[in-house]
């Protein structure tokens, strides 16, 4: 059975304060020691359109949030109409009667409670802009979040707006809380905090990503705004200068990428952050970094594609581009964080991999990770080991070869300006010194050297880069990648409760693959299910090509994260095909 928790969704017009209501409530809950996970969708436009914020509060760490909820706070009719379907049985809709005239579509065992957001905000706060504060007060009471904690956060948020604005907001907040006192009774939820303040933090994937980069010693960041990656660049502009680093907002993605490679050439750890359309623009330059063997980290926060696509929606559809998307053959490493915590540690790791293997590393994050906030244990910077580039020995410096053909494929690198050696970084095919050379023999040799680095890594990848949860006696194994992990884990647990044993393999490094581990996972089970959030089964193709097997593909391109229930349903289906129900009666025999 899943641990006690509460699921609340807030819906309304973008720009009405939906997101900030949810944000404040979840932060206040977290300050009280509860674990939280939030999920939000917002329209691509700055104003207007339907926005929603969902949060899960629990005593224990949370793996996934799902799409269903017990409590809905509807700011307007559109939200009511769009979201009542997602209510769990026995749930309650709280709605603003001024904005939601029509409840006729709501059916089933759903309780409906009018909460006069507009009227109370007008009456108590003097402005309908305080609607979201009324909602915040009410929901705080519902979730048994201490009013003083919430008010403290509201004060912080509005302190610079002047006394009047702050007072008006606080009045609306109190009005909402009082109303909750009168209406909620038994419906209130009481959760017991387990963690202590200070042990955990609430953070989004994008913030964690940039923090990971800072921890790894990133000293140069160039980006170009694009949803949902912009906040990484924004975070960098505020914080990188505090660590002796430089940030540039370039004139486009090509320029951003090129300048990162320039910074890397002179020895700095450099990164850029983008999303699908921007990643493609960087493509040519990524191949340059690959052939010049320069470390660089590219964060790709995936969104719905192709082209401008669904800019604010979830999708895992850049994998093939990340792995294969080059003209010519250019090795690179692709890693995929599965949780907000991973965003920190794996981004830091990406820098180490880039430095150690001297190649571009693409970090495939996604919208879901980028914008969701989550309670995570405070990051432990001492767990971040920062690798440095291989430097030449004095012996090697006597006849320095930038692209020396070594057993690991990794060659010693010097920074420009080093006496006694030249760092020649060509885009043309070159020999060990970096001198252009177009013979077929040399081209084949240098290809082999560059790709050898991946083999070297692939052997190490097996040691640490996958979450592998083998279950004794399991006939099924689910393979997923990236942010689907929590949903798969919960589904496996629910399946176990029904007596279906399922193993779960979730690599953090998706290219090169940890081959031996995957072979082991495949060998132990009868059927493999690959779960991913795209239309064509990109990871599955990659696995099939490599391991020659026939998985069941569970693919979703709905713009929202897959839920544990959906995964469970597929598990049950596959389980039933392995154990068909016994034929019943004679009619079967006669068919």
């Amino acid at each position: 059975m899943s641990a006690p928790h509460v699921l609340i969704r807030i819906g309304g017009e973008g720009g009405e304060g939906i997101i900030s209501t949810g944000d404040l409530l979840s932060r206040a809950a977290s300050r009280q020691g509860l674990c939280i996970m939030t999920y939000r969708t917002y329209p691509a436009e700055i104003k207007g359109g339907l926005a929603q914020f969902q949060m899960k509060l629990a005593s224990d760490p949370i793996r996934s949030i799902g799409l269903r909820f017990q409590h809905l706070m509807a700011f307007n009719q559109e939200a009511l109409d769009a979201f009542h379907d997602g209510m769990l049985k026995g749930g309650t809709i709280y709605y603003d009667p001024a904005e939601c005239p029509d409840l006729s579509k709501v059916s089933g065992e759903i309780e409906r409670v009018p909460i006069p957001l507009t009227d109370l905000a007008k009456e108590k706060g003097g402005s309908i802009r305080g609607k979201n504060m009324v909602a915040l007060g009410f929901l705080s009471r519902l979730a048994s979040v201490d009013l003083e904690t919430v008010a403290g956060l509201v004060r912080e948020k509005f302190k610079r707006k002047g006394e009047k604005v702050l007072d008006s907001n606080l009045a609306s907040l109190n009005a909402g809380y009082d109303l909750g006192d009168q209406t909620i009774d038994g419906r209130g939820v009481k959760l017991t905090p387990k963690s202590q303040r200070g042990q955990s933090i609430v953070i989004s994937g994008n913030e964690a990503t940039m923090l990971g980069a800072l921890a790894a010693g990133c000293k140069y960041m160039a980006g170009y705004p694009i949803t949902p990656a912009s906040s990484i660049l924004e975070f960098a502009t505020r914080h990188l200068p505090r660590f002796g680093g430089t940030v540039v907002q370039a004139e486009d993605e090509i320029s951003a990428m090129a300048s990162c490679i320039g910074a890397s050439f002179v020895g700095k750890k450099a990164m850029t952050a983008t999303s699908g359309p921007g990643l493609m623009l960087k493509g040519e330059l990524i191949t340059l970094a690959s052939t010049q063997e320069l470390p660089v980290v590219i964060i790709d926060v995936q969104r719905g594609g192709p082209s401008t696509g669904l800019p604010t929606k979830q999708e895992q559809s850049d994998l093939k581009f990340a792995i294969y998307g080059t003209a010519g053959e250019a090795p690179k490493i692709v890693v995929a964080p599965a949780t907000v915590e991973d965003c920190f540690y794996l981004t830091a790791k990406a820098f180490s991999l880039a430095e150690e293997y001297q190649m571009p590393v693409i970090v495939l994050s996604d919208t879901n990770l980028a914008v969701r906030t989550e309670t995570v244990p405070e990051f432990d910077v001492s767990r971040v080991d920062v690798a440095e580039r291989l430097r030449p020995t004095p012996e090697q410096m006597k006849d320095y070869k930038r692209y020396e053909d070594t057993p690991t494929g990794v060659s010693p690198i010097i920074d420009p300006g080093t006496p006694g050696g030249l760092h020649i970084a060509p885009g043309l095919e070159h020999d060990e010194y970096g001198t252009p050379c177009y013979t077929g023999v040399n081209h084949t040799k240098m290809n082999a050297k560059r790709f050898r680095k991946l083999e070297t890594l692939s052997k190490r990848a097996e040691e640490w880069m996958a979450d592998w949860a083998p279950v004794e006696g399991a006939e099924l194994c689910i393979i997923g990648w990236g942010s689907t992990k929590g949903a798969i884990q919960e589904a496996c647990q629910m399946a176990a409760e029904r007596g279906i044993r399922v193993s779960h393999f979730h690599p953090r490094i998706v290219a090169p693959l940890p081959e031996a581990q995957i072979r082991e996972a495949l060998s132990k089970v009868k059927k493999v299910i690959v779960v991913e959030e795209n239309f064509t089964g990109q990871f599955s193709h990659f696995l099939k090509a490599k391991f020659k097997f026939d998985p069941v593909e569970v693919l979703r391109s709905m713009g929202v994260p897959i839920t544990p229930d959906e995964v469970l349903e597929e598990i049950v289906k596959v389980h039933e095909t392995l154990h068909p129900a016994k034929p019943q009666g004679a009619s079967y025999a006669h068919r």
Partner: protein
Amino acid sequence: MSADVIAPPPPENPTEDWLREERIPHIWCPGCGIGTSVNCFTQALEESKLDRDNVVIVSGIGCTGRVAGYLKLDSFHTTHGRPIPFATGLKLANPKLKVIVYSGDGDLFAIGGNHFFHAARRNVDMTVICVNNMTYGMTGGQVTPTTPIGAKATTSPFGNIEEPFNLPFIAHSCGAVYVARWTSFHVRQLTKAIRDAIAKPGFTFVEVISPCPTLFSRRNRLGDGLDAMKFYKAHSEIRNGADTREVAISHQSKIICGKFVDITRTTWHDAQAAHLHRVMGNRFVPPRNWEHLIKSDPMEDLVAETIRDSSGDGS
């Protein structure tokens, strides 16, 4: 009188006729200047009496980039930064069309800067309307190449330090034949400028200084849309024919408006047609829809010539 002979009431809003009403309400925030510019644009189209079947609007990505989607015109919503090359292709492939590029400052001058320079240099026949709100609206208020020094944006939290572009000067020096700047307060002048720009052959450019109350104004504590109008009214100076080197804008400075450039230069396709016709004579076959650019109709001659060439006629 029976009901069916009563004429329908005239549209209440003169722009209504140009809008795809099923797409309204639009996405723009209250006080945003983009909508105002669209009113001026549709009014200008109305006045220019163009055959609307031959007008195409091309836009990039951004809040301004959404303009194309609201107009009852053939429209081409492209990728970020590239509306000008898309427009170049469609104009050169079918010069009969009136091509208008409508996009934002970031789209046209950051990622798309290169394309702007070259289309102006080539004098491709199109009108570029840039809504300059000095920020990336759609992605949440980052710095753009027109953000003034000192202004705050999400990616310049401590104030911008980069020199902004002076757009009329760029357009002028790259070769635009018509360059004007107005604010979204100057609706009459802006309407006329757009009308003139569309009427004029060659690469024409209209800059619309416009507020982004939600992001730029708020972060810089400049008030709402109405405050912006008051500011524009008080701080604009109309100086037609001003030297474009002297019309740069700094943070909350005077805004010099007017028509700065109005010259004549051969357009790309006229030059191309004339040149190839000159050097190739009748062997130059103009692409379909180019025929009007060539004085004689070379097709028959060309066929005759080809036959003559291939039959080795020597007698």
